[in-house]
């Protein structure tokens, strides 16, 4: 890559953090000075207070666990099916020919819109929620896995064959590492989509989880609790990102794009 300026500067690493601190500092001051409404924009210190209080009562922890459990079970279910089918489609043109048009047709449908249909099939319990998250996670995984396998240069297969690789060795030493950067990018997309879908469903159903907590605090005008839940969602997203960067450094150290 030689377009633009692609160099990383270690000094700039702290700039996003400083921008964040300035943002929250400004918010705090503006809210105390009643420059913005303290009812709808309570100062961050009040939100942190609410966070600590809600953790104390166990309410926040319970909702956090509910959201993460739901999110991860949906992600793993949809992600693993997507990974397997994507590999099958990358491997065989016949499978691709049959399944690719179906995926192209279903993919653009907003997944939240099929939630009622999924409830008809799976009932109104936890299963339906997991399934709709799984459906959302499935698409980026199947598409990225297939594309990741397809973009491996044919020359690597020729080298492997000429140097005596068995089909399993080709899979282990060519296909798996060759497609892993794209698969990791798929994981990132799938995780973010799962988080979006989880929150949407919880908002919609209003039973438990961070989404439900947001809706409930809005209805009862406990705005600082609403923000506390949003902070938790942001924390989940940030955790995903750092986990993925860590994984990429371990799994694809050779990829120039492993910063994701």
């Amino acid at each position, binding site marked *: 890559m030689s377009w633009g300026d692609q160099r990383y500067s270690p000094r700039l690493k702290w700039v996003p953090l400083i921008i964040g601190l300035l943002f929250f500092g400004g918010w705090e001051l503006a809210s105390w000075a009643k420059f913005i409404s303290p009812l709808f924009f309570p100062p961050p210190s009040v939100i942190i207070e609410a966070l600590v209080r809600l953790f104390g009562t166990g309410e926040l922890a319970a909702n956090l666990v509910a959201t993460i459990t739901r999110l991860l079970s949906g992600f793993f279910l949809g992600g693993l099916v997507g990974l397997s089918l994507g590999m099958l489609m990358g491997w065989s043109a016949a499978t691709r020919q049959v399944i690719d048009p179906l995926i192209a047709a279903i993919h653009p449908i907003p997944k939240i819109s099929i939630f009622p249909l999924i409830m008809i099939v799976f009932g109104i319990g936890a299963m339906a929620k997991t399934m709709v998250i799984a459906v959302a996670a499935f698409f980026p995984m199947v598409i990225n896995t297939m594309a990741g396998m397809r973009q491996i*240069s044919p*020359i*690597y297969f*020729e*080298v*492997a*064959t*000429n*140097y*005596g*690789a*068995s089909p399993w*060795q080709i899979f282990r*030493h*060519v296909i798996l*590492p*060759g497609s*892993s950067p794209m698969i990791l990018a798929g994981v990132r997309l799938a995780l973010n989509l799962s988080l979006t879908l989880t929150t949407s469903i919880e908002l919609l159903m209003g039973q438990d989880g961070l989404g439900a907590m947001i809706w409930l605090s809005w209805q009862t005008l406990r705005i600082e609790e609403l923000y506390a839940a949003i902070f938790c969602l942001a924390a989940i997203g940030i955790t995903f990102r750092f986990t993925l960067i860590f994984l990429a450094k371990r799994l*694809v*150290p*050779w*990829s*120039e794009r492993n910063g994701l």
Partner: protein
Amino acid sequence: MRITCNRIRLEYPTQNGVLLALQETSFSVASEEFVCIVGPSGCGKTSLLKIIAGLLQPTGGEIDIQASQKNGKPKSALVFQEHGLFPWMSVLDNVGIGLQFHGVARTERHTRSMAFIEQFGLSEFAHSYPHELSVGMRQRVSLARAFVMDPDVLLMDEPFASLDALTKVVLQEELLRIWKDHKKQVIYVTHDIEEALLLGDRVLVMSGRPGSIRDDIKVLLPRPRDLQDRSHPEIVSHKEHIWAILEEEVRKSIGGVT
């Protein structure tokens, strides 16, 4: 090992019907012989190499490879143009990959790979990834990967085509030096006439598509042949002769007037 190609024919199905890539291609290569194949682009020289490597099946003719007595050794090892190294493996793992595919244990694999990594002057970079190396260094790794297999024949597909002129000369000399130590049979495909004459015991000249052997030239000038030998009378006369054949072929293939 002796390789005999007898009236090899290769056809590809394409959208506009069958494309004849090679026809009536016959030649043989004796053991320990360094044979260069030159020809215009698209003449099927790479396909010919892949047929010998067993990666492609000819649609006609036969190929006879009489393997040497030693067991457990691969017949051929390919060296590709570029990008043939696995980007996800370190230099050490790339060089040792053929041994790994053949089930050689890790310690032995590393010892044998390191020996060749050293011969090609890459010891410092054993744990680097290909993208951290220059193009010339990467091609050295490709050569080491082929040599470590101790194959009967090395098949090289324009290995130095993407190198700058200076690096090319250095690597050609390195290749000849290590080839001399190990006495390998080499089939070396190139479109560079001078390179073919400096490296080869024999130069096979191919016609444009459909490819076939137009001439078979023995280069008698003793090795080591260096830069000055580019102007040696024998080399110059061969060069003019080959160029005359190729010029006609190139004109035919691009539709010019002869």
